């Protein structure tokens, strides 16, 4: 069978920095830039802290241990853009993150993106999963995350095929274990 290479085509440094299921490590510079591992973003509408929390929340909603934080940050950039165009969306996201942080403070005495175990963070998310805030973030991620060509590669999906002559000579029927 012709197998697909799921390894991302990125530099060794980026791969090393990608860092699995650990917490998304992001710091906010005085200039308002969110600095992550091998990614940085300058939010146009959201508070940098809000942006960073949304990146963590995105990973917790659709956790893929072989995805670099940068892919989740790219998805959150879409939310930031929506917030820039619409004050209601901005308020929804800012307020939503405040509520989430308050819940984290109550349960764990720390903000959401410092809570160490994924399961503990997921419990906080389950409590708000019907809320418009959560639905907005999750709904956006369906395309914001999964419609990124880099994500396709990591999931083993080959994308466009017409320019390569389709699969007629590239393994459409090459299964050898059935």
């Amino acid at each position, binding site marked *: 069978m012709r197998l697909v290479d799921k390894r991302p085509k990125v530099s060794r440094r980026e791969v090393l920095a990608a860092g699995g299921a650990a917490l998304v490590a992001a710091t906010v510079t005085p200039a308002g830039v969110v600095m992550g591992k091998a990614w940085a973003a300058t939010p146009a509408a959201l508070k940098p802290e809000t942006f960073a929390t949304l990146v963590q929340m995105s990973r917790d909603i659709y956790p893929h241990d072989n995805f670099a934080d940068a892919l989740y940050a790219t998805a959150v950039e879409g939310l930031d853009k929506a917030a820039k165009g619409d004050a209601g969306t901005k308020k929804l996201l800012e307020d939503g993150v405040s509520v989430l942080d308050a819940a984290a403070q109550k349960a764990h005495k720390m903000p959401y993106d410092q809570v160490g175990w994924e399961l503990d963070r997921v419990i906080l998310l389950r409590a708000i999963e019907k809320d418009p805030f959560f639905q907005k973030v999750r709904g956006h991620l369906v395309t914001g995350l999964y419609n990124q060509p880099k994500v396709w590669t990591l999931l083993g999906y080959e994308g466009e*095929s017409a320019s390569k002559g389709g699969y007629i000579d590239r393994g459409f029927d090459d299964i050898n274990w059935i």
Partner: protein
Amino acid sequence: MAAPYDKNDDSVVVVIGSGAGGGTLGAELAINGIDTVILEAGGRHETEDFENDEWPMFSKISWLDKRTTSGSWRVAQDFAGLPAWIVKAVGGSTVHWAGASLRFQPHEFKAHTTYGDIAGASLLDWPIDLKEMEPWYAKAEDRMGVTRTNDIPGLPGNNNFRIMKAGADKLGYKECHTGRMAINSQPRHDRAGCQQIGFCFQGCKTGAKWSTLVAEIPKGEATGKLEVRPNAQVLKIEHDKSGKVTGVLYADKDGNQQRQKARAVCVAGNSIESPRLLLNSASSMFPDGLANSSGQVGRNYMRHMTGSVYAVFDKPVHMYRGTTMAGIIMDEAKHDPTRGFAAGYEMETLSLGVPFLAAFLDPGAWGREFSSAMDMYPNMAGMWLVGEDMPQEKNAITLHKSEKDAHGLPIPNVHFDDHENDIAMRNHAYRQGAAVYDAVGATRTFPTPPYPSTHNLGTNRMSEKPGDGVVNKWGQAHDVKNLFVSDGSVFTTGAAENPTLTIVSLALRQAHHIKDRMAKGTL
């Protein structure tokens, strides 16, 4: 006269919509020498506009005008603003369709007689039977180049099919093959053979897949008797004092209203827009909507019992390689009430790319339960389940009470409640679909809920008696002599099979009926 036609030319037949029904009808009328104008709401996108990319292609040509939903069906919860996946472009939904082309079984034309009275279901026999349809099915299969008919070989099976076939064999299913597909397995009728590109739902880049855009409309246009006018959305069908239709009012690409006169009008806007247009064409003479003396316009909306089963294996499959609908199991299509429900269903392979699978595998789901499934994408196989659903009067397209579209017309609401029979059938199909995959070692299976409706049927049903339905056996409105319906909305009942071959066969038959009537001077 030759195309293009003058808007005041009242000798033309106007066809509304250029999809499976309208595109075929318009071409066949032109081939038979009849001056025809197809008004199509969408734009014209030829093959070079097609992209192997799910969301951009969806956004480019889908019908995205606002619609609302109601009822207990899961689509109303998961996709409240998108009840159906229908194309708004020249070629209609045949640009995105998969190509499965199956004839009805004989008993499916006689659903009421065969299944009997079922509580809550508005079952009715079709006023035609398989015998009458056979020559038209044969003609349609030839036109569409359906594999396994007319000595056309079946398509080769891809990996997704080979999993299905191995499972079907283990379960003892007897009728499993690579389907009857309107996809060239070898070059035919000036169109190429399939290159197993795997983006059938995004418009076929090789032209191997039949659509009215690449196959019928060019043939019609070549006669000089067919004009296809894109970006022309019909708003209202007009009539004279005698109750005969005289033409249509449409909005052109700039939103300006235009009037096209007509000798006869054929409505083929698919099962949401066709009844909506008739309802929006209400007048003092027809206060409940045009052709609606029966009160059946918009009712009996069917969308097929659907669902999918995806399965994960411990080894790679690569389901997305090759034809999207690559094979079928037909053993469950029979009517066998011992299974606990009336009518039957088909199991057909299906593959979605990562972008669509993320949206449709389990809408609303999140967390590791979901992402771990996506992580196994290369090891997945998939099938779609499609069966006959029960017509119900309350399942209906109605005009929204307050919301209006860009032209100031009420938008449609799509109401659907699953019938008990639909639910029992879906549960059976989920079980059997999972069993197929379990038989060949699936480590995990997913009973995936219905997608927005691709098979929209029944909202202008065909009936023997005028009181029972909207059109007669020719698709002619019971109430209006020169008004026809030419799409899947005429289906009296849904049958288990994918509907398009039957829509095309009925359109070909209707074209010849119109020609005969014109020759006799009765139209």
